């Protein structure tokens, strides 16, 4: 499951969709909108994307995760548009017989999203806003 959505992400629904009886672990990365950045208070965020390419890159990351790690399945859902502090911007769920490869694949997926998926974050502060360029 690889999706770009504009509504709040339903985490339980993703876990329910990915988990199968043969899985011994479901590892979840929940990216959360933080209330601070660059020593400033963040009021909210907006995410923009080159949607057709972003979806293609999420699918590629998923395919690489499945070929390079001993996992059964991976789901990535990234939200776009306006998000408040505390809301979920991205969910990565990895299902596997054993936890080790699932942790590793999940780390690989979020690190690679931050490098190659054409999605951009704009941070809104009390005194202005800026587009963030480059991941961390």
């Amino acid at each position, binding site marked *: 499951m690889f999706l770009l959505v504009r509504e709040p992400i339903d985490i339980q629904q993703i876990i329910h969709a990915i988990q199968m009886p043969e899985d011994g672990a479901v590892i979840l990365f929940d990216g959360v909108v933080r209330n601070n950045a660059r020593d400033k208070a963040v009021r909210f965020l907006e995410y923009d*994307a080159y949607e057709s390419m972003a979806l293609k890159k999420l699918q590629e990351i998923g395919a690489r995760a499945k070929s390079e790690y001993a996992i059964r399945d991976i789901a990535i859902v990234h939200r776009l548009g306006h998000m408040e502090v505390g809301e979920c*911007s991205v969910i990565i769920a990895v299902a596997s017989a054993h936890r080790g490869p699932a942790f590793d694949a999940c780390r690989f997926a979020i690190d690679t*999203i*931050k490098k*190659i998926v*054409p999605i*951009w974050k704009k941070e809104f502060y009390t005194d202005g806003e800026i587009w963030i360029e480059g*991941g961390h």
Partner: protein
Amino acid sequence: MSIRVLFFASLADVSGMRETTVDAAAVTDVNSVFNIFVEKFPALEKYRASLLFALNAEFARPESPVRDGDELAFFPPVSGG
């Protein structure tokens, strides 16, 4: 005979648009398309060093050739997640 050109994030703000077209006969490669827009919007020049390009939704290089019907996107380093 045209190339569809897309701008995202800060580049969309600077150019004041997200989508336009250029005459395919007037350009050769990715860089030549970008130069057209730098002439129109000189503020784009400072993005050149960090700029990323995608040709038909795949990462491309400044010297990648462009053809009629291509979709070419210009954008800054990504910051999703």
